[in-house]
């Protein structure tokens, strides 16, 4: 298939349609507006429905309904809008409702700025809804990866009956890049709708999407089931990361999303200067990759984020030795340059050339 050039947000929207998503419920917020705008135009033509919800709260609860009804459904938003969705996301988790949530991060906290950021790593990976749960979080670093991840997200959502978050930043949403839309993704097993989705039950065996588990022992059992049968399996099967120039590296940048492409340039720059440095790029933030951090040759892991440092804790946990982990970040909508990242790395490596 030929590549075309598309804006990240529109590519995300188009990818959803290609993945069979026919329902979108969302509320405007910069920098993701082109997702609802595109879908408001294209979904009806595709035989689906677009509803501009009255709020992010309503949007996620519409998603909860459509997902419960067995449809592929998506919502998207940005930082404060995602915060508003937290309760509803919790309901999707507890009701085991497959759905995809796109989070185009901007600078925070609060209303903050609309410029790109990675300050919502915790928001995506640690939740903010109540209770014990995890949500698969995919982190694309380019328009192409955003397209691939959205398509994959629907597969994961359906397979494990869970919400899936695709977390990018405003830059990826706003920029245009060449992209191939039709790249196939791995399909996964899914339970037939008749076994769970509403609208597919029978009088004898109605399907119900439940959220209340009033008896504590039953509630505990549900939690244990989620961790054993869902999260453990996802950790086993769905973890994704990339390595760049890591074969002989003694130092490793760790970065995801937009930061990873910037750092990649920094790696090139440093390699030219003779530094043995590479890049570990988590493509899933939960489950967080563990294997690349077991690399004993690495003297320091240099975490770079567009935040004050949030992924750094996951890296510390994965490495198991805090001393080996350093951090460089810009935040509040500032995008670091390859040059400043390289400069930082040189400082960390000292004479490590």
């Amino acid at each position, binding site marked *: 298939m030929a590549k075309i050039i598309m804006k990240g947000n529109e590519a995300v929207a188009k990818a959803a349609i290609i993945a069979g998503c026919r329902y979108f419920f969302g509320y405007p917020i910069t920098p993701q507006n082109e997702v609802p705008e595109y879908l408001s135009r294209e979904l009806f033509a595709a035989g689906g429905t677009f509803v501009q919800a009255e709020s992010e709260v309503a949007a996620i609860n519409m998603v909860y309904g459509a997902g419960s009804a067995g449809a592929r459904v998506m919502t998207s938003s940005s930082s404060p809008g995602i915060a508003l969705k937290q309760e509803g996301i919790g309901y999707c988790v507890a009701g085991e409702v497959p759905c995809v949530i796109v989070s185009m991060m901007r600078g925070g906290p609060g209303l903050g700025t609309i410029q790109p950021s990675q300050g919502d790593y915790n928001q995506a990976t640690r939740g903010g809804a109540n209770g014990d749960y995890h949500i698969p979080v995919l982190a694309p670093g380019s328009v192409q990866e955003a397209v691939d991840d959205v398509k994959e997200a629907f597969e994961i959502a359906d397979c494990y009956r869970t919400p899936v978050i695709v977390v990018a930043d405003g830059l990826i949403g706003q920029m245009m890049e060449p992209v191939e839309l039709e790249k196939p993704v791995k399909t996964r097993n899914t339970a037939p709708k008749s076994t769970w989705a*509403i609208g597919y039950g029978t009088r004898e065996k*109605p399907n119900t999407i439940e959220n209340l588990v009033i008896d504590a022992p039953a509630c505990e059992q549900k939690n244990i089931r989620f961790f054993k049968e869902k999260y453990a399996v996802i950790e086993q099967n769905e973890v994704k990361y990339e390595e760049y120039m890591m074969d002989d590296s003694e130092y490793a940048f760790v970065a995801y999303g937009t930061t990873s492409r910037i750092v990649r340039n920094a790696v090139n720059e440093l390699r030219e200067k003779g530094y043995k440095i590479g890049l570990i790029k988590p493509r899933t933030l939960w489950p967080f990759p563990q294997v690349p951090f077991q690399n004993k040759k690495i003297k320091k892991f240099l975490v770079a984020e567009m935040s004050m440092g949030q992924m750094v804790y996951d890296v510390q946990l994965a490495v198991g030795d805090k001393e080996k982990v350093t951090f460089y970040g810009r935040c509040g909508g500032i995008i670091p340059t390859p040059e400043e990242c390289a400069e930082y790395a040189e400082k960390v490596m000292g004479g490590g050339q």
Partner: protein
Amino acid sequence: MPTTVFKKPNGLTDKRMHYCPGCGHGIIHRLIAECIEEINEIDNTIICAPVGCAVFIPNYFTYDSIQCAHGRAPATATGIKRVHSNKIVITYQGDGDLASIGMAEIIHAAARGEKITTVFINNGIYGMTGGQMAPTTLPGMKATTAQTGRDLERNGNPIRVCELLSTLDGPAYIERVAVDTPAHIIKAKKAIKKALQYQKAGKGFTMVEVLSSCPTNWGLSAAKAMEFVGEKMIPYYPLGIFKDVEEVE
């Protein structure tokens, strides 16, 4: 030949309802089941439970069902109805659920003309959580968060939901009924049935507000509670049709 003239309708399960003795929820559940049976949609109905005493609805109906987040049933029903446009979709909501936390969702579902039916149980109190003030608690009526009785200056004014929603263009049918007497129950059933028939015909958003009782949190016997509905609630929340797209006035 003996004929059964009244029995538990199909569409209700055999489970014993957890509602307190004499609580209006049970009556209204039965009315819904009767209407759905009569319009022949038992196998084609989805009911959205609220957070409130009726959260256990999935136990009591044989329809597919979902437990919605507090106040958000109209949004969730929207999601469902957009997918299953040929099914009957009902939201069942209490006054805390619909008129307090869920105010934006019900207004917007109504304004969109979402083709769902909302059965709105106005018992003037938060039943499930133990008797806190609802948006519909009457002036002077006691609640655990208005212990000397609702004071309009302190606690604000009650909201009349039918009156509010009927200013919108989206609703096709809005009526307020009560379940305090057999006669009112007959009317209540008619209203619910009409609303469901309108939904089936795709006319738009429909809502029936049902004045009901909460003997437990009102601190009254079941019978006295029904008297209270008749004597205090109906005068404040007048019964009747507030909107009917078929009725050209």
